[in-house]
């Protein structure tokens, strides 16, 4: 990726996503969008703002509340050579369409011996933090990461959002693209610094399977995705004040996990904290914890620390929700105990 200074603008996550969609739709007439309220409304989380006006109802299609129907239709259209981007409004709704996702979208290429390609993107909003309760606040990273046949990405920063979404659309495989509501920089949510960042204006792609070291350090490795990356960076700042230098890895790809980047860091820091907004059991902390216990065992000098939303539905009341989702403070505490132990 080569870009000149002049062409870089500060954009929110939402605007970055929007720009990627726009550029890909301009570039390739086969790309179209389907979803609930993606038309005039512009997507409940702003992913398609302005696209209906630019491309019209044929390429930015509002659908009925029929996730199995329209995401299944996206599969059928992709098999014909189109390149649909289907939006599942909240990832929490995946249960009404999971069969289409994991038994068909993810497996048809394989079952056909590689003869049927499904170049499609499933766009979906994840995450909690504003009291939307048990059916609208989940991330469900591992629910997708566990199942074979789809690439699953969850970028954090606007630059990555744009480049990875463009790559997802150009990829010949099904890609589940998770964007975090709080990182979209939407006007009607808490404003986070991380949701605004430099984004090259011209079209570019970034690899779908690479984690990124977003802060270098020598004492401990903290791995997170999306909001947990943001919290880890906050924690690292605090820890630095206390003389602890944390290396922070932003996963970006939920599946596959970029083990190389993680192991390399572990070889340096020998200590690992994994933070996950998803549920504890069988989640990211499990997968990366086990990576450390197997391929990374020789580097490990202390127990791996797993911080995740405990195995409870996300509660509504603000105090309760705050309690269950890990944050910078939890990470700081964990690292301090770990490093001083």
């Amino acid at each position, binding site marked *: 990726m080569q870009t000149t200074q002049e062409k870089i603008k500060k954009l929110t996550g939402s605007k970055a996503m929007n720009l990627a969609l726009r550029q890909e739709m301009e570039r390739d007439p086969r790309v179209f969008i389907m979803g*609930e*309220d993606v*038309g*005039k*409304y512009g997507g*409940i989380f702003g992913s398609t703002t302005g696209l209906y006006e630019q491309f019209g109802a044929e390429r930015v299609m*509002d*659908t*009925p*509340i*029929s*996730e*199995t*129907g329209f995401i299944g239709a996206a599969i059928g259209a992709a098999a014909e050579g189109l390149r649909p981007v289907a939006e599942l409004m909240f990832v*929490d*709704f995946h*249960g*009404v369409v999971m069969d289409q996702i994991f038994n068909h979208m993810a497996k048809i290429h394989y079952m056909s011996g590689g003869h049927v390609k499904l170049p499609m993107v499933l766009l979906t909003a994840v995450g909690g*933090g*504003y*009291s*939307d*309760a*048990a*059916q*609208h606040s989940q991330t469900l990273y591992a629910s997708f990461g566990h199942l074979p046949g789809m690439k699953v990405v969850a970028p954090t920063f606007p630059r990555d959002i744009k480049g990875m979404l463009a790559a997802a659309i150009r990829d010949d495989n099904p890609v589940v693209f998770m964007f975090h509501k709080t990182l979209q920089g939407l*006007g*009607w*949510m*808490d404003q986070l610094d991380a949701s605004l960042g430099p984004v090259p204006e011209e079209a570019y792609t970034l690899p779908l399977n690479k984690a990124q070291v977003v802060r270098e350090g020598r004492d401990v490795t903290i791995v997170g995705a999306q909001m947990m990356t943001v919290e880890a960076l906050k924690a690292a700042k605090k820890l630095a004040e206390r003389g602890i230098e944390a290396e922070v890895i932003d996963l970006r790809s939920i599946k596959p996990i970029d083990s190389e980047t993680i192991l390399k860091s572990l070889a340096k820091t020998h200590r690992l904290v994994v933070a996950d907004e998803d549920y504890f059991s069988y989640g990211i902390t499990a997968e990366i914890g086990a990576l450390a216990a197997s391929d990374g065992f020789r580097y490990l000098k202390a127990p791996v620390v797993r911080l995740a939303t*405990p*195995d*409870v*539905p996300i*509660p*509504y*009341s*603000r*105090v*309760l*929700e*705050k*309690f*269950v989702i890990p944050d910078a403070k939890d990470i700081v505490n964990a690292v301090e105990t770990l490093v001083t132990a």
Partner: protein
Amino acid sequence: MKGIDKNDLLWMYRKMKTSRYFEQRMEKAYLEGKQPVFNIGAGPVPGEMHLSTGQEPAAAGMLVHLTKDDTVTATHRPHHQAIAKGVDLKKMTAEIFGKKTGLGKGKGGHMHLFDPDVKFSCGGIVGAGMPHAVGAALANKKMETDRVAVAFIGEGAANSGAFHESLNLAALWKLPFIVVVEDNAWGISVPKNKSTSVATNDIRARAYGIKGYLVKDNDPMEMYRVSREAVERARNGEGPSLIEIETYRFLGHFQGDPELYRDKAEVPKLREKDPIERLKKYILKEQEVTVMELEAIEKAVVNEVDTAFEFAIHSEFPEPEEALEDVFA
């Protein structure tokens, strides 16, 4: 078809008024801390807020025929049904404020209100409550009661797979089940003609060999009549019904909805046909009821709702650690 019972109408009036006033107070409470800049997570009531203002006839006209032993499942827009079903208003309000004294100890919130004492539940997944009502109707039948189960859904939900599977099961098993489709013309920003391949959903009853009814123009009296017939049929073992009511969404899909997708003139026109005013006029004209009697009801409504808000506002928040409780019985 028998005539309309005066007490039923007064009951409906009271419930519709309660719902309306409850939502007026709720709207205010919800917007506290969210002005001048709307921030969904701020203020005493965070999260999404779907108000039913304008849709009161759908709930009151049906639920006047039920008892607390009949089951109701509702949606993400549940206040009017919850109130008409007799859900404990103090606990319901406290729940929406996220308090320990709430129906769900602050764990459920506005979209997830459960009051087993009056067999009411709702949820945030479109269409998902229908099978639960089918299951309740099945239980009613198995236990040889004459209880019925009613599912409320929006017209948008009538295009979900759950709708089809539920109606087929209910019809096949001849269950005491009724679905009320509240056609408020919109599924968030998507108008009915962009989501539904037929003009009205009562037609779809034929796909299951059951009775289909259509109530036009948000008419509370017509809803009352049609629902009475459907409930009687269900109680008599004559099987399920589908009722679609053309109703009005006076407000945005949720609070904070910019509503750029609908004509600015739509709501004022709908508001001219306010169903509560319409019911009031009808009662005063057709029944032996005085303005004073209605005023007494109105006062009682204000009092009930204000008391609920007082209770909610002054209740305690749960302790953070309580988040870990109640996962299992």
